[in-house]
């Protein structure tokens, strides 16, 4: 059994990676000696076109080379449309963090209120139900029109997509605080504010953290699309720009970087969630 050995899963992962890279490599091999046009024309159109290769799809070695060059020099600036991938990622992470923090500032107190008061819950529920399923990108034109700043609009889009999971989870966490804990607070005549911070907040914290984790995941998904629309800076813009440059190697490097950053953000919040989780 593989699971009996600690290195089993890692070995299997490496195997899958190797098969994938191998297949990729084989699929993108240039067909040698199959020159279909004359030498003059081959010189004119370039080697890959002349050998009848179907597309400019790079092989794994090309992409690895590209990634290596990005890792070696991630923060260069050579003009507005030529910035290092590290700088672009930093822009995106910055926007996500600002939008996410603003959303947390609004969603957690409001979710608390909704969870504590059935009246507020019933009053706000229709709005939440209608606004929650709206794609965050649908807000983009409205944001551009009202805010009149593409960078701030992107942050607003992040805000609007992060707010719902946090709001709903906070309200749910607060609503489902065990009755017996609330009864303890009641019999001890604990004042409302102290009850909110010492009983309800710690009890709901794991659920709130789950909401935050979902939010940051969605925010990271949305930022790429948002930056493709607003342009200028950010990893989303980088991807779009490299599409216009037809540099598939760069796009693949960016995809890998986006995945890694998303994983790191999730791991960070998972760690925070563990810190507030209590065993029962």
């Amino acid at each position, binding site marked *: 059994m593989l699971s009996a050995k600690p290195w089993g899963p890692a070995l299997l992962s490496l195997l899958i990676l190797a098969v994938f890279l191998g297949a990729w490599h084989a699929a993108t091999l240039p067909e040698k000696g199959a020159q279909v046009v004359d030498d003059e024309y081959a010189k004119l159109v370039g080697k890959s076109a002349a050998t009848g290769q179907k597309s400019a799809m790079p092989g794994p070695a090309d992409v690895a080379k590209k990634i290596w060059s990005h890792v070696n020099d991630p923060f260069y600036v050579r003009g507005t449309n030529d910035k290092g991938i590290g700088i672009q990622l930093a822009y995106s992470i910055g926007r996500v963090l600002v939008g996410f923090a603003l959303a947390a500032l609004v969603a957690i107190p409001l979710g608390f209120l909704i969870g504590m008061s059935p009246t507020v819950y019933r009053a706000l529920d229709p709005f939440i139900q209608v606004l929650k399923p709206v794609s965050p990108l649908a807000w983009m034109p409205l944001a551009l029109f009202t805010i009149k700043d593409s960078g701030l609009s992107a942050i607003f889009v992040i805000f609007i997509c992060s707010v719902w999971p946090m709001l709903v989870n906070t309200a749910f966490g607060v609503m489902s605080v065990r009755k017996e804990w609330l009864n303890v607070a009641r*019999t001890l005549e604990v004042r409302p504010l102290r009850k909110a911070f*010492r009983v309800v907040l710690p009890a709901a914290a794991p659920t709130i953290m789950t909401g935050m984790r979902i939010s940051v995941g969605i925010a990271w998904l949305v930022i790429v699309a948002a930056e493709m629309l607003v342009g200028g800076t950010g990893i989303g813009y980088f991807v779009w720009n490299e599409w216009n440059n037809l540099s598939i190697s760069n796009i693949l490097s960016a995809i890998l970087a986006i995945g890694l950053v998303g994983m790191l953000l999730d791991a960070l919040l998972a760690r925070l969630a563990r810190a507030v989780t209590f*065993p029962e």
Partner: protein
Amino acid sequence: MSEQPFVKLEGIAKRYPAPGGGVNTVFENLWLACAQGEFVCVIGHSGCGKTTILNVLAGLERPSEGYAFVQGREIAGPSLDRAVIFQSHALLPWLTVVENIAFAVRSKWPDWDNARVREHCRKHIALVNLTGAERKRPAELSGGMKQRVGIARALAIEPKMLLMDEPFSALDALTRGVLQEEVLKICAETRQTVFMITHDVDEAILLADRIVLMTNGPGARVAEVMLNTLPRDRNRHDIHRHPHYYPIRNHLLDFLIDRSKSFERELEGRAYDPQNPPLVMPGIGEAPTAQRRAAAAPSLARNGT
């Protein structure tokens, strides 16, 4: 009871809207009093509204009808004067043992400094024999230890009255016995007024001065009030050697097994005053219960029970 009652329930009822549109009455017209320093036990099957009575006394629930008084004043809500020991211990799992108790202590005395709170907690942790476990979280404690923390938390606020809702029912028999004895000792030392709910006959005999016997719900009522005629310095080791022990125990078991179901029939053709349910003292040469049982027997036989 010659003393002015410490708490008094006057004709309380609890009703819920029934799913079919009617009204479910858990109990109604229930009268109960408890004197200062007295240990009162309510015994009855699940569903007779015992916990509701306790919640009314705690101020966590309002009766549908009737009034509840503490020291002559109507109960308006929960109070630090009446500490509750919950069946499920209800410790806050994200706090350690000492933090759980300190939370209660700070609720009662918000202006105490840290050293004073710590010292007060230490004293009560020692009282329930938990010294050494101060820094542990509830999840690391056994069921018995958790309930000890619950008891320490309740005692730490120095309440005028302790309300215990089947505090030992979730524990194994051995732990339960040890904890019962500790509670008995603490209550005897402090002359604490206690109201406890249980369905354990031996627990009631060991701890209570008076045992309130409730019939089954819905429409539950106080069938009898039994005076525990065993001397107050009881302990688990020789309580069963006292000549009154078995009459008391048999009376309680008879009630719980048979009479709690059929009490309404037992009442037929007999005056019953909910304000003054019959007082029984098994073992003190009394025969009224036996007579009543004999009187009730034909009706039981008639109904084929």
